[in-house]
């Protein structure tokens, strides 16, 4: 279970990334988190895995209160979550196999288990034949799939995926989403950050939309209203593409004023 209550997050640079988030995701749910670039989606994920502590508010994940837990407990929280990172976060010096196996080693799996399970998940993402490659020797989409394999390998009770299909072709993307839905149907909570409208629309699931650090919509089925942002963009080439830009207040996340107003 994920519970963010009244969460504010300001970065050291002064950027107010989250401005009062209340979000509750029950065990077994499947949730899409959508929103424009820079709206705070990845920040929410960082809060959930205790990579960040909220400036204000409370974050509870799988029974751990991240603001109150001891540093030594953090690894145990993280082991209950499988995360696909937007920037993959693969260890460059290790092979694909070792990158995935590492997640199992830290929980003390036996070599036998590791061998079987890693081979299985690499197969699942279609990378069995790249097991001995290093991440730098892979294409963008392949790296993304390694990240997905690593997130799945420990059968975590919660899977979080930040743009898991940003570098994948439509077939692959659909395949990965269906895989996540299938895993969800077996009881795992799934939270997917994505901006692929078409993909979201193919699933009848809960969609949480965030903008300017605030939740602007939370309903089941369908992508958030495209129209509600329509008036904010002009055709590029015509003067300023974003009229709400505020270069005078460089530390403010985009459009935050609009949201607060």
């Amino acid at each position, binding site marked *: 279970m994920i519970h963010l209550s009244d969460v504010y997050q300001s970065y050291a640079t002064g950027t107010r990334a989250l401005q009062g988030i209340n979000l509750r995701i029950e065990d077994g749910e499947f949730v899409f988190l959508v929103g424009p670039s820079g709206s705070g989606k990845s920040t929410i994920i960082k809060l959930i895995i205790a*990579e960040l502590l909220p400036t204000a508010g409370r974050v509870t994940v799988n029974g751990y209160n991240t603001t109150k837990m001891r540093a030594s407990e953090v690894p145990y929280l993280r082991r209950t979550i499988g995360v696909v990172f937007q920037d993959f976060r693969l260890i460059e010096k290790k092979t694909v196999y070792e990158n995935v196996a590492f997640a199992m080693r830290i929980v003390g799996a036996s070599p036998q288990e590791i061998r079987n399970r890693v081979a299985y998940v690499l197969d699942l993402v279609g990378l069995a034949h790249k097991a001995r490659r290093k991440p730098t020797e892979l294409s963008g989409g392949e790296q993304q799939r390694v990240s997905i394999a690593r997130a799945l390998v420990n059968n975590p009770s919660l899977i979080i995926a930040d743009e898991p299909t940003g570098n994948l072709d439509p077939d692959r993307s659909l395949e990965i989403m269906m895989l996540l839905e299938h895993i969800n149907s077996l009881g795992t909570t799934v939270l997917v950050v994505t901006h692929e409208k078409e993909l979201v629309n193919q699933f009848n699931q809960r969609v949480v939309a965030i903008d300017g650090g605030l939740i602007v919509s939370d309903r089941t089925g369908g992508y958030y209203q495209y129209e509600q942002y329509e008036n904010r963009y002009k055709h590029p080439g015509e003067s300023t593409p974003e009229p709400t830009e505020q270069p005078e207040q460089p530390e403010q996340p985009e459009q935050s004023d609009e949201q607060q107003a």
Partner: protein
Amino acid sequence: MNNRHNFAYFFREGVQGIFTHGFMSFASVSVITTCLVLTGTVVLLMLTLTGTIDELGSVGDIRAYVDETLSDENAAALETTLRAIDNVSGVDFIDRARGLNELKEQLGENSTLLDGLENDNPLRNCYRVWVTDIGDYQDTVLAVENTRGIAQVYASVDAVSELQRLRNILGVASLTFVIMLGMVSIFLISNTIKLATFDRREEIGIMKIIGATDGFVRAPFFIESLILSVTAAVIAFVLQWIIGDAIVESALSSLTFMKVASFRDFLLPYLGAFVGTALIIGVLGSLLSIRKFLRV
């Protein structure tokens, strides 16, 4: 959970790490080796220096004149008594004839002054006594004076105490220099290790973010730096042996009055110091360096 599996993993990772971070490993080992050998060589030279001064100290011999009432035989018999004194390293009996000859040599161009004394030798029998440790010179002089049959003792107490002061000062200076060199080495080594581990901050961050405990991240590092440190210490030891022998055989040994310290006399202390230093700086240094990257 399953520490047996983990240990195998840690060990494998530790060994692999050395090769994956090839240049980093090379840099660390070579800097540790270099600093150990540098400090080791300076210590050897310092030992040579202080050893030589001690040797020079024996030049400050004690002259003990035998009571003239003793017969020449009795006088010669005193040698065993003198030898038995603590801190006495050597005794040389100079009978009256030899004493006169030495005196003539000493006077050089004025030796004619002593012509004709051979038949009526006015000198006394005499002992020249050398000490082992000039630090206890005065006590030894006293003991010689108190020996029955010795009438008078001439000792260069001033000269020896001057030499003694020199030795102490040089000893302190050498020690200071070696300690400073040691500190410089520690600084250089830890600097290198910090730079070498700096390259791993991302890797460590990723490990932590997917749920590895600090201990789990550290273990392969520990084994890796253990292997690197011991390797460096052993290489340094072998190099030091070669350099030590070279010093002995080199120019210095052709100076007969120098007491060249041989590395072979200090094998165990050196091995201990090298391995100990390498382990402490190498392992502790690398574990401390990664500590700040663990805070993720």
